[in-house]
């Protein structure tokens, strides 16, 4: 085991859900909290957090996006965190980007500082932005995940899908070109993974809502290639990716004429289940697609001794 439990627990992680985890991505929050509880690392929610600014903000007013993220960063430091856990890829990117441009551009720094000052806040830019994937891989470590596994994987092969904003343009969570940490983590709990060339291709983000023909086609390609490679499910790290791939499979069928019913899981759901989490507390019942398969894979509780 990489780090000792008590040290990590004492340090703790401050957790920034972001807007999606309170809506369509609620299963992500449920499974994340469950997984970290099972690991003995309870998460503390950032008090009075606000929206990160995200993509849409940057296309209207980049400065404003930076202000929103800067408030989050400052609150995190005020609330005593060295690390801030941002599970949503868009939040992760927005926070990293703000941190980076404040650091790189004195004029951005000045604007942010002045604006925060008006709200009685000071810019505290030293918080480390972390993603659960990276925390599990580096802080908790593969051996610890392996040791804490209590259930044998009963499902089929999966494709690991990272999407875009988590691995680009900032490295830190994983390699930009060919990230592999999710595969490594899942293999620790016995999940077979396929080689998935599209693992960092974009799901189209909000295009599924705004320009659905295009957005659906992107998701069709992702589903089709996963199926071609023999994956029975796709595992994701981002609420928007999960939403797009999961919620639109019927529309994709209408568009492409090909039928898909593939479970789209969060990596926290798969790991949480292996560590003993329940179906409902992991939000597995919230899936739109592949519900039958999910039932088959996750329903029976079978603790394993021989496994470890």
């Amino acid at each position, binding site marked *: 085991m990489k780090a000792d439990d008590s040290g990590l627990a004492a340090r703790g992680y401050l957790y920034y859900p972001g*807007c*999606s985890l*309170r*809506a*369509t*991505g*609620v*299963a992500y929050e449920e499974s994340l909290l469950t997984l970290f509880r099972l690991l003995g690392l309870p998460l503390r929610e950032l008090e*009075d*957090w*606000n*929206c990160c*600014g995200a*993509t*849409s*903000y*940057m*296309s*209207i*007013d*980049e*400065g*404003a996006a930076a*202000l*929103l993220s800067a*408030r989050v960063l400052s609150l995190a430091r005020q609330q005593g965190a060295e690390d801030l856990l941002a599970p949503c890829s868009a939040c992760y*990117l927005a926070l990293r980007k703000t941190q980076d*441009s404040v650091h*790189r*551009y004195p*004029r*951005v720094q000045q604007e942010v500082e002045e*604006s*925060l000052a*008006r*709200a009685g*806040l000071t810019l505290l830019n030293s918080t480390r932005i972390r993603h659960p994937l990276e925390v599990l891989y580096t802080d908790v470590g593969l051996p610890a995940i392996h040791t804490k596994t209590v259930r044998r994987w009963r499902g089929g092969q999966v494709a690991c899908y990272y999407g*875009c*904003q988590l691995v*680009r*343009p900032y490295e830190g969570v994983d390699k*930009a070109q060919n990230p592999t940490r999710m595969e490594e983590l899942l293999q620790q709990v016995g999940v077979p993974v396929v080689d998935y060339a599209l693992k960092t*291709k*974009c799901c*189209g*983000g*909000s*295009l599924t*809502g*705004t*320009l*659905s023909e*295009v957005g659906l086609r992107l998701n069709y390609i992702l589903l089709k290639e996963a199926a071609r490679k023999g994956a029975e499910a796709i595992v994701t790290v981002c609420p928007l990716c999960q939403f797009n791939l999961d*919620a*639109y499979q*019927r*529309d994709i069928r209408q568009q492409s004429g090909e039928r898909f019913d593939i479970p789209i899981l969060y990596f926290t759901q798969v790991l949480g289940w292996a560590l003993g989490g329940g179906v409902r507390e992991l939000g597995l*019942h*919230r899936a*739109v697609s592949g519900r039958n398969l999910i039932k088959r894979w996750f329903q029976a509780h079978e603790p394993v001794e021989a496994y470890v």
Partner: protein
Amino acid sequence: MQALTLRKMKFQREALPQWVEQISDIPGCERVYSCIQCGTCSGTCPLSIYMDFTPRRVIALVREGFRTEALTCQTIWLCASCYACTAHCPQNVHITEVMYSLKREAIRHRMYPPRFPIPVLAQEFYKSVRRRGRNSEFWLVLRMALRSNPFLLLKMIGTGWRLLRTGRLSLKREKIERIQEIQKEFAAPREAIS
């Protein structure tokens, strides 16, 4: 089909070199002059196949100062900000940032088709967060659709129903406690739209 008599020549009087300087002065857009027109951005972009100008051509338009084409092309709205081009560019041109800066300028000058859902979504998002500090997906999509194309709602009914059934459609309007902090942050006059 376009008229056979459409003139497509670009005259140098249309080029705005000062505008290029303004763009290159925006944080992240510094390296726009370094582009070698290799096309890696377009090759790696998952959406380039839908664009009227490939990302490489948009950078060329910017470099040459053809502002109108750069701001009115569909490309900038199709960009999903996946950063593949930026990560891949051999000259470290931050193409995604250039796209953002073009989107901002186009929105500022209303240089996009009326009722075009993508900028409408951005604006609704912007307003909601300024007002409440957080974004509530349901209300955002609802307002975006009403302002751009109400028929979108019809298409969404199925998905909406499935989400509601699985407890993923929250009708709650999220708001932070100290919203005045956000409002004060934004109090100073800003260049962007209000």
